[in-house]
C-alpha cells in the first residue's frame, strides 16, 4: 500500500492516476465469422474501469480477433462494443482513442524514438515544447530517458517494447490494448517486463486488455482472466479462481499443469475414485465427473499411508523423476494406463525418501486441494 501511493505520486503522465479517467468496456453479443468458422461466437464481456484483464486462449481461439474488434481493426458481423456510455462499434479506429501495443511493436522505422512517441501528439495538434515535454515524460516513465534521438534499429528488443508502450499511452488514452507484447522477448526479460507492465498499469490506472496465450503470464499479471476457446468465453474470473476452480476440463488443462482422473458417481451422489470418496455431486445427476490434480499439490506420503479424513492416498510405481532446477517432476503410474505427475521441491526434505525408478511410492492429496469438474476429460 505504501509502495502504491509512492508510485502514484511519482506518476507524471496523467493527472488522474486512480483511474477515474479509465473507461469500462462493455461487449455484448459480439459475433464474427470467417466462412463457417466462428472467430467470435456471441461474446459478452465486461471489462471494469481501470482493471487489467487478460484474454487467454490457444492460438486461433479468437482472443486476438476480439482485441482487434475493440481496437476497430476488424468489422464484426454483429454485436455491441461500448466504451463507457459510447457505442463504438461503428467508430473508425482513428477515432476510438485507445492505445495499443502491437505484437510486432509496429514502430515507424523512418522516425526516431521521439518522433514515434510524438506521433499521436502531433496528430492531436500538440506542438513544440509541450510535445517535447510529454515525450520526455513518457520516456522517463518507461525508463528510457535520453533515448529520444535514437533510431529504432539502434534499439534492443526490450527497448523497442518500451518505446511501443510509451507511444501507446503518451496521448492519455483511457483504454490500453496489448497484443502479446512480450512474446518476442527472451524469458528473463519477459518476466521482468511482466512486473514492469503491471507496475505501469497501476501508475496509469488505465483500463487494460491484454492478450496472451501464455497462461503463466496471464496468472502473473491479471486482475481477471477471460479464458477464450473456439470463439467463446469459457470462464471469466480472478487468476486464483481460474486456477483453483476451473470451470471445465479445457480451463483445467490449459491453465497450469494437471492430471485428469475420471470419477464414478455412486447412487448416493458421492464421487469416487477407485472406491475412495473424493467429493459429492449432490443432487446433480451429471454422468461424467473428473478429478483434476495439480502436480505441485501432490506430495509423497510415507510408506503404507492410508486415505483418511484429511488426505487421499494413491499407491503407484515411480516411473521417472526429472530434475528441473527449482523443482523435480516425478511420474507415478497408479495403474497400467494412468500416470500422475508429482512436482516436489528440491530442498531435500520434500524429496521422496530415496526412491528410485521402479519403486513403489505413496502419493497424498489434501482433501482441500481436490478440484472436481463436471464432464469427461479434455480430448
Amino acid at each position, binding site marked *: 500500500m505504501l509502495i502504491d501511493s509512492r508510485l502514484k505520486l511519482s506518476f507524471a503522465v496523467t493527472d488522474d492516476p486512480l483511474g477515474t479517467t479509465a473507461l469500462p468496456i462493455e461487449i455484448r453479443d459480439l459475433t464474427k465469422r470467417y466462412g463457417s468458422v466462428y472467430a467470435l461466437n456471441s461474446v459478452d464481456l465486461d471489462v471494469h474501469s481501470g482493471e487489467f484483464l487478460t484474454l487467454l486462449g490457444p492460438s486461433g481461439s479468437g482472443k486476438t480477433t476480439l482485441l482487434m474488434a475493440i481496437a476497430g481493426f476488424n468489422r464484426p458481423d454483429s454485436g455491441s462494443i461500448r466504451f463507457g456510455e459510447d457505442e463504438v462499434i461503428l467508430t473508425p479506429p482513428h477515432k476510438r482513442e485507445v492505445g495499443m501495443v502491437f505484437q*510486432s511493436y*509496429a514502430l515507424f*522505422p523512418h522516425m526516431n524514438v521521439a518522433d514515434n512517441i510524438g506521433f499521436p501528439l502531433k496528430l492531436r495538434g500538440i506542438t513544440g515544447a509541450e510535445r517535447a515535454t510529454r515525450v520526455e515524460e513518457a520516456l522517463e516513465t518507461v525508463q528510457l530517458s535520453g533515448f529520444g534521438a535514437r533510431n529504432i534499429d539502434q534499439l534492443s528488443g526490450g527497448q523497442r517494447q518500451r518505446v511501443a508502450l510509451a507511444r501507446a499511452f503518451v*496521448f492519455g488514452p483511457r483504454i490500453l490494448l496489448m497484443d502479446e507484447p512480450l512474446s518476442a522477448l527472451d524469458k528473463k526479460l519477459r518476466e521482468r517486463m511482466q512486473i514492469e507492465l503491471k507496475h505501469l498499469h497501476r501508475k496509469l490506472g488505465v483500463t487494460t486488455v491484454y492478450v496472451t496465450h501464455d497462461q503463466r503470464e496471464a496468472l502473473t499479471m491479471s486482475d481477471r482472466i477471460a479464458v477464450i476457446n473456439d470463439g467463446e468465453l469459457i470462464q471469466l474470473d480472478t487468476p486464483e479462481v481460474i486456477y483453483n476452480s476451473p470451470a471445465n476440463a479445457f480451463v483445467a488443462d490449459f491453465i497450469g499443469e494437471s492430471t485428469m482422473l475420471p470419477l464414478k458417481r455412486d447412487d448416493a451422489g458421492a464421487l469416487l475414485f477407485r472406491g475412495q470418496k473424493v467429493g459429492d455431486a449432490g443432487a446433480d445427476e451429471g454422468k461424467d465427473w473428473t478429478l483434476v490434480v495439480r502436480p505441485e499439490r501432490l506430495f509423497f506420503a510415507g510408506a503404507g499411508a492410508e486415505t483418511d479424513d484429511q488426505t487421499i492416498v494413491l499407491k503407484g510405481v515411480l516411473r521417472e523423476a526429472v530434475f528441473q532446477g527449482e523443482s523435480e517432476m516425478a511420474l507415478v503410474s497408479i495403474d497400467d494406463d494412468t500416470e500422475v505427475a508429482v512436482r516436489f521441491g528440491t530442498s531435500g526434505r520434500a524429496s521422496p525418501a530415496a526412491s528410485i525408478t521402479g519403486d513403489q511410492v505413496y502419493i497424498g492429496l489434501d482433501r482441500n486441494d481436490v478440484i472436481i469438474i463436471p464432464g469427461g476429460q479434455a480430448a
Partner: protein
Amino acid sequence: MARADADASRSGRHLHGAALKRQHTREQWSVLSLVVPALIVIVLIILIPLSWLFYLSFLGDNGGFSLENYHKMTQYKSYYRIFVTTFQVSILTTLACIALGYPLAFFLAQLPPRWAGVFMLAVLLPFWTSLLVRTYAWLVLLQKRGILNEFAMQVGLWETPIKLVHNMTGTLIGMAHIMLPFLILPLYNAMRKIDKDMMHAAANLGANPINAFWRVYFPLSLPGMVAGSLIVFVLCLGFYVTPAVLGGGRVIMVSNQITAILENQFDWGAASALGVVLLVATTFTLYLAARVFKFDAALFGRD
C-alpha cells in the same frame, strides 16, 4: 608435472590448427571459383568493348590522340538539344510511370497474395511480348486514322484527328507503357514488405487514412519507388526503339543520334564519344541519386 601440463595445453591449442586453416582456405577458394564464368563474361562483353569505345572516342582523324570528337559536341547546338531531349523524355516517362504505377502497385499490395499474382500477370504479360511488337501496336492505335482517333471522333470527343504519334506525346505513351513493369515490380515488393500493423498503428494513434498514408505508408514505400524510378530513368536514357518508331524523327535521343552518325557518316569516333558522355551522365545521375536518396540501401535491401 606442472611443466608437462602447460606443454600439453599449448600443443592442445594448436591441435590440427594448420590443417583446419588449410581446409578453410580451400573452401573460400572453391566458393570464389563460382564467380569465374561471370567474371569472364563481364570482361569479354563489357570491359573490353567499353575500353575500345573509350579508345575510339579519343582518336582523331589523323589516328592520334585528340579531343576533337568531344569538342564537336560543344560546338553544335544540336548535340545540346539531343541531351536535353534525352533527359526530358527520361524524366517525363519516369513521372508518368510513377503516376500510373504507384496507385496500381498500391492496389496490388492490398490484395490477397493469390489475387495479386493474377493481376501481376496482367502487368507482366506485355512485358513478355516483344518490344518492337508493342511499339508498333501503339503506332496502330495512335496514328492519324488509328483506332483511338477514329473512336474519339465517332463518339464526338474531338472533330479532327489529333496528332498522337510521331511526336513527344506518342513517344511518352509508348515509353511509359514499356517501362511501367520496371517501376511496379520493385515498388510492389517494397509495399508488400510494409507490415500491416504499421497502418493499424497509425490509425490507432489517431491518424485518419490520408494522414496515415502520407506520414507512414508513403515514406515506407519510398525506397521501392526510388529504386523503381531509377531503373526506369536509367533505362530511358539509353532507349532507342520506341523514340525511333513513335517519335517519327522529331524526338531524337542520344541513342538515335548515335545510330544516325553511324549510318550517315560512319564516324565511329563521334559515335563513341556520344556513348561515353551518355555513360558518364548516367553514372553521375546514379551517384547523385545515391547521395540524395541513400538508394544503395533501397536497391540492395536492408531488412
